[in-house]
């Protein structure tokens, strides 16, 4: 039972778990989360574009400082870590590899871009400084050389101006031909006369190195910008977007599938539930039906119990009737015998009387003496015979014994009446000892010869009870006792009455029989329990006795010892609360197992 229960719980838990998993799966796609990812990606792309613009602004000199170029670094890092957190759930799922890969390749390219922008800033700053300084440097150098008189102004100034212009042009249009021209002019500058003062030579060297710096930084910048130009950050973000979108689609599909599964599962569950419900209803019906049949059986049982009670009574009555019949039969036969004998003797008396009458008539008629003498002789003979035969004495004796027999019968009838009191349901004052006596009388033929009766009657008050019921108990107990005594032994049945406290009387019915076996003892008050052969007893006797005593608010106890005997002790209140005769017969609460 409990194992089944555990199994049931486990099954229910599993079903619910599956349901929960399926529901979770249908909710696995967090649209909001996806939207957040899309938003982050959009921000990343936006930032990337803005970054490009800032680089361009720095290159063209629109912005005076690089904060705007440097700031995206932190923003990029935070966006990237935000994206990482947001996509952490995606990676490891189906399609997550593509996302991880796209993220990785985005990281690679963004790292390159960061490096390129770093280098761009560095080179751009220097390019701007040198290019800004060139005109001033050329001016100072030109003035110095002219002032020192090393070279005439018209020789050196155009060269320097050319270099400055060409260099600045190179920044805008870094053409190889221009570069070569600049390099040629730088070589020219390098061939300045040796008479140049050291300070001017240093200035010239510096000027040249700034021109070279411009060329170098411009070239380097071009390379960096070229690099930046082809760095596919935006595309990588797009690829990343695609991968995430692809995965999102796949999860949506999976969600759809999960939803279908959920529906199927729910339908299956519902069907199972319906099946369970139908089974429940069926077993409920079955239960009701078996309940009904049980109730019927119970009613039948009760009915049969009533019937059994009735039949027990009948059987008690039967025993009683047998006893009574026997009791009556003896005096009856006796009375009949005497009556028969008297009947025979009536004939002699009739003859005597006839002869007496004729003799008297003859005398009055003064008839022949012979006739008179004849009749006298006949009369005398008849009278003599009547006297000799002591017919009248005999008849008197016969009548006396008939009268005896009749009074015996009438005694039995009184007892019978006492026993069963036709007003049986009525409660009346009852002398327990009388009850015992009349019961003994009724049970006489059962006890006859076989059992000695010892009466130890203490003086006890009358009790208020249903005498017929109490007598039934006595009869039952006395009959049982008589039956319990083996044939080979002189039976002694001891009946005792005594007071039990102030308001109770005690009756003991003791035999010296075989005793009740221990395994039987607990069952003796059970209904239908019997040790007698089938048909010999209803098995209701003690149960009914028990019930009767209970109904009288009394107590019945049994004490038994093997081969020593049994004593039933009944205690009855002098004044029981209410004795309801009906309660005994039709009583729902009558214990089937006492």
């Amino acid at each position, binding site marked *: 039972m409990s194992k089944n229960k555990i199994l049931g719980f486990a099954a229910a838990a599993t079903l619910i778990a599956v349901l929960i998993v399926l529901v979770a799966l249908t909710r696995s796609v967090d649209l909001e989360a996806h939207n957040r990812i899309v938003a982050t990606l959009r921000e990343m792309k936006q930032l990337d574009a803005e970054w490009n613009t800032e680089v361009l602004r720095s290159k063209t000199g*629109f912005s005076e400082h690089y904060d705007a170029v440097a700031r995206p670094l932190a923003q990029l890092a935070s966006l990237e870590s935000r994206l990482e957190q947001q996509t952490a759930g995606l990676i490891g799922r189906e399609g997550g590899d593509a996302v991880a890969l796209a993220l990785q390749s985005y990281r690679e390219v963004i790292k390159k871009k960061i490096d390129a922008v770093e280098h761009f800033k560095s080179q751009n700053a220097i390019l701007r400084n040198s290019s800004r300084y060139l005109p001033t440097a050329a001016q100072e150098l030109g003035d110095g050389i002219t002032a020192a008189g090393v070279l005439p102004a018209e020789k050196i100034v155009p060269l320097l101006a050319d270099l400055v212009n060409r260099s600045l042009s190179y920044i805008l249009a870094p053409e190889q031909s221009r570069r070569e021209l600049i390099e040629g002019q730088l070589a020219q500058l390098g061939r300045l006369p040796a008479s140049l003062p050291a300070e001017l030579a240093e200035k010239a060297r510096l000027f040249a190195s700034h021109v070279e*710096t411009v060329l170098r930084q411009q070239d380097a910048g071009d390379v960096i910008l070229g690099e930046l130009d082809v760095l596919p950050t935006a595309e990588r973000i797009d690829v990343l977007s695609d991968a995430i979108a692809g995965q999102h689609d796949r999860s949506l599909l999976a969600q759809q599938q999960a939803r279908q599964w959920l529906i199927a599962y729910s339908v299956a569950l519902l069907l199972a539930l319906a099946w369970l419900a139908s089974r429940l209803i069926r077993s409920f019906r079955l239960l009701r039906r078996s309940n009904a049949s049980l109730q019927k059986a119970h009613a039948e049982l009760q009915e049969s119990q009533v019937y059994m009670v009735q039949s027990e009574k009948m059987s008690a009555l039967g025993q009683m009737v047998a006893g009574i019949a026997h009791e009556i039969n003896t005096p009856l036969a006796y009375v009949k015998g005497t009556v028969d004998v008297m009947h025979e003797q009536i004939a002699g008396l009739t003859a005597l009387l006839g002869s007496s009458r004729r003799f008297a008539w003859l005398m009055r008629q003064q008839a022949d003496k012979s006739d008179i003498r004849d009749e006298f002789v006949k009369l005398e003979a008849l009278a003599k015979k009547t006297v000799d035969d002591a017919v009248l004495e005999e008849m008197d004796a016969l009548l006396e014994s008939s009268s005896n027999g009749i009074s015996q019968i009438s005694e039995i009838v009184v007892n019978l009446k006492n026993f069963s009191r036709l007003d049986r349901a009525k409660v009346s004052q009852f002398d327990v000892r009388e009850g015992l006596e009349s019961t003994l009388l009724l049970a006489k033929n059962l006890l006859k010869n076989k059992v000695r009766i010892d009466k130890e009657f203490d003086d006890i008050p009358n009790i208020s009870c249903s005498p017929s019921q109490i007598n039934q108990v006595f009869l039952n107990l006395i009959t049982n006792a008589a039956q319990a005594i083996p044939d080979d032994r002189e039976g002694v049945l001891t009946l005792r009455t005594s007071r039990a406290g102030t308001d109770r009387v005690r009756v003991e019915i003791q035999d010296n029989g075989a005793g009740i076996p221990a395994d039987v003892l607990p069952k003796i008050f059970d209904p239908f329990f019997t040790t007698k052969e089938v048909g010999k007893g209803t098995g209701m006797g003690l149960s009914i006795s028990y019930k009767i005593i209970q109904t009288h608010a009394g107590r019945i106890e049994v004490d038994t010892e093997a081969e020593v005997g049994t004593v039933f002790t009944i205690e009855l209140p002098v004044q029981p609360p209410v004795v309801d005769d009906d309660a005994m017969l039709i009583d729902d609460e009558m214990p089937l197992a006492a």
Partner: protein
Amino acid sequence: MHAMLKRRGGPAGLFLSLAVWAGGNAALAAEPIEPLPLRVELDAAKVALGNKLFHDKRLSRDGTIACASCHRLDSGGVDNAPVSTGIDGAKGGINAPTVFNAGYNFRQFWDGRASSLEEQAAGPIHNPIEMGSDWQQVLAKLRQDPALVAQAAAAYPAGLSDETIVDAIATFERSLVTPSAFDRYLRGDNSAIGLDEARGYQLFKNYGCVACHQGVNIGGNMFQVFGVMGDYFAKRGGPTKADLGRYNVTGLEADKHVFKVPSLRNVALTAPYFHDGSANTLEDAVDVMFRYQLGRSAPAEDKSLIVKFLRTLTGDKQARSLVATR
């Protein structure tokens, strides 16, 4: 977009570029230096916790060194030594930069190896010659301090942990913002700095210092070769590993001797200068800059005007008051 980047310019682009290159049209360009913000919004509880931790010597292995030992807040956020001294008196290989305004640096450390203050803060604790500790030790020690644990719990739901320690310190550092007279000047208060200083600023721009030292932090937003126009290290001699700069991070030849351009805010307080602490005075540092970064000479007067300008970058005393609590 990418076509534009290439700047193989249409006529308009050409015109604009020419105008800028030819003389820095002031009308077109804003100032290359931006003032510090007027307000900084930070969580006061976190700032307070960070402040405590910043001064907490238990962060070091032997309990002798706090962040503040090398970044003295009463001394420009530096230790004023060429190289720092860590636990057991170990000498570091590089000059300690200031923590003031470090939040405005695009990266942290001379070589930019930390991309954020958070990333940076864990560095010294583990650096064997700086604080030489580890989180397990630090946390074990700090957790014995109920007051601190309670304070951390009040500032962070997660309570005291490596992450919250780092976050608190970084938050505290972000509060170390030092607006100066020059910021007021930039905001239009012409009398905030003297005429010489204003002239010095002009020269600072004209000579091209702003090519590298620009932006809100007057530096701190790009890498540059130290020795653009001449070999500084050949001249100085005694090359060290630290001299390699960003090369130590990237391993790229092009990154040799490349350093983060330092912020010049509070520069008057942060001597000695440069990553090697080789310049003892601002004048020396400016000389080196002219020689090796600009590749030009300048009259001593211009240089001293520039130094005067640099002194206007020292933060006002009440700098911290601009941290707004939220």
